[in-house]
């Protein structure tokens, strides 16, 4: 799989096919058993701790539930990476944080605590935090899950805008087809830990493979079976001895 610079690449697939695992491999929160992950030609697996941390400063990651630090205010959450990695003065930090919060429309929420935010707001704050170090790569883990349509639209537009204005390469993991189609330049479909198809969302819709068809059209039965693996139905009903 290749992710192009400056593009939004989406990774789709049924639950449990390894989408999040792939993200964690890219960010090396997990170690690959086999294969290589190259970022700018550098193998992630071979990095030392300091090399890894240097790499991670160039990667922003948006977690599914935001993963804001609950003991810090919205402002401090966004300021957190700056305080950890830069020697910027207090005034400059304030400037940067407010700019980023403004970009996600939450400048007014700077003094709230994470517990006071709605799900959509928390995710936008997390997005502001992810871009505060001006990363080259932005990774979104299921950014659309559990959002109302309005928040969803906001996030979709933000992903597109941030990618284009900041020149970021984005990787989006999701299975919300409509939203994916709206933002991504290229998509991969994962199944059982391997990419089974790739292309633009339109191309995938035309794709004729059984697996791709089932996923893109939401068919209940197909390669991904409706029934969890079980003994024969009539056999089990008649067999009274075992539950």
């Amino acid at each position, binding site marked *: 799989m290749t992710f192009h610079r400056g593009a939004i690449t989406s990774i789709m697939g049924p639950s449990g096919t390894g989408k999040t695992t792939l993200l964690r491999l890219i960010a090396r*929160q997990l170690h690959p058993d086999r294969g290589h992950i190259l970022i700018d030609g550098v193998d992630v697996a071979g990095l030392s701790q300091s090399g890894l*941390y240097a790499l991670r400063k160039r990667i922003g990651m948006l*977690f*599914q539930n935001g*993963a804001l*630090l*609950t003991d810090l205010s919205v402002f401090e959450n966004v300021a957190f990476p700056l305080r*950890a990695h830069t020697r910027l003065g207090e005034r400059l930090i304030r400037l940067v944080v407010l700019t980023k919060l403004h970009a996600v429309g939450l400048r007014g929420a700077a003094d709230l605590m994470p517990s006071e935010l709605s799900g959509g707001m928390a995710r936008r704050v997390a997005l502001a935090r992810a871009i505060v170090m001006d990363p080259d790569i932005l990774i979104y883990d299921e950014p659309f899950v559990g959002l109302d349509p309005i928040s969803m639209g906001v996030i979709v537009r933000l992903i597109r805008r941030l990618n284009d204005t900041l020149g970021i390469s984005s990787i989006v993991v999701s299975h919300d087809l409509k939203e994916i189609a709206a933002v991504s330049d290229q998509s991969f479909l994962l199944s059982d830990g391997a990419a089974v198809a790739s292309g633009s969302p339109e191309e995938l819709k035309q794709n004729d493979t059984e697996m791709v068809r089932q996923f893109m059209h939401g068919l209940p039965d197909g390669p991904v079976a409706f029934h969890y693996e079980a003994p024969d139905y009539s056999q089990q009903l008649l067999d009274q001895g075992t539950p």
Partner: protein
Amino acid sequence: MKFLHDLWRSQSEFVRTFGAMTLFFFQLLRYSPSTLVRRFSLVVAQIFNAGALSIVIIMVSGLFVGGVLGLQAFANLERFNAEEATGILAGFALVKEIGPVITALLFAGRAGTALTSEIGLMKATDQLSAMEMMAVNPMQRVFVPRFLGGIIAMPLLTAVFTMVGLLGAHLVAVELLDVDVGAYWQQLQQAMELDDVYEGITKSIVFGFVASLIAVWEGYNSVPTPEGVGRATTRTVVSTAIAVLILDFMITAYLL
């Protein structure tokens, strides 16, 4: 055969957990000096969390434990006309045993559980992963400050508990039961050596290490789900209680 297999499995599981915990402990020690120097404010915040927030329960318990020691000591010593020695009995018990042990048990219940559940929740809500992704080592930002905070808080809490306990014993024996106040304190002062106080301090320091390590470890090692965090919190109390009581026996036997 199955029995042997199960035994082997549980034993190797135990060894693995113990090994992981030991590695975790060394990591904590490794990052302790730099955290103390560069993130001292975080440590102070945790001393407040573990120490200051536990002070009410420590003082109330200390007062009543001291009082009950005074009562029991008086009731038994009176039979030998030695009620002035109430101070010795209550004082020794408090300084050498009850003070450090009960403080450690209360600490596990109040501060230890708070630490475990807080860290467990941070893990369950991806906050620790998020920190790693922001190239911030959770060791320095989360674990070590809490570990050090607990270590520093424990001896202080023990001192508070023991002092309030002595006050409780004094109130019962002198004010309530009319033991002569001069004799009460003079006998205690004469009998108690500095070594006895050191024994109490040694214990409280050891218990501080153990209780903090267990609390932080259980949070770190918890299964990141609601029930996993709940179970880890329970384990913190149980493991700390057992470890403290066993260590108390060992230290006492060693120092005797």
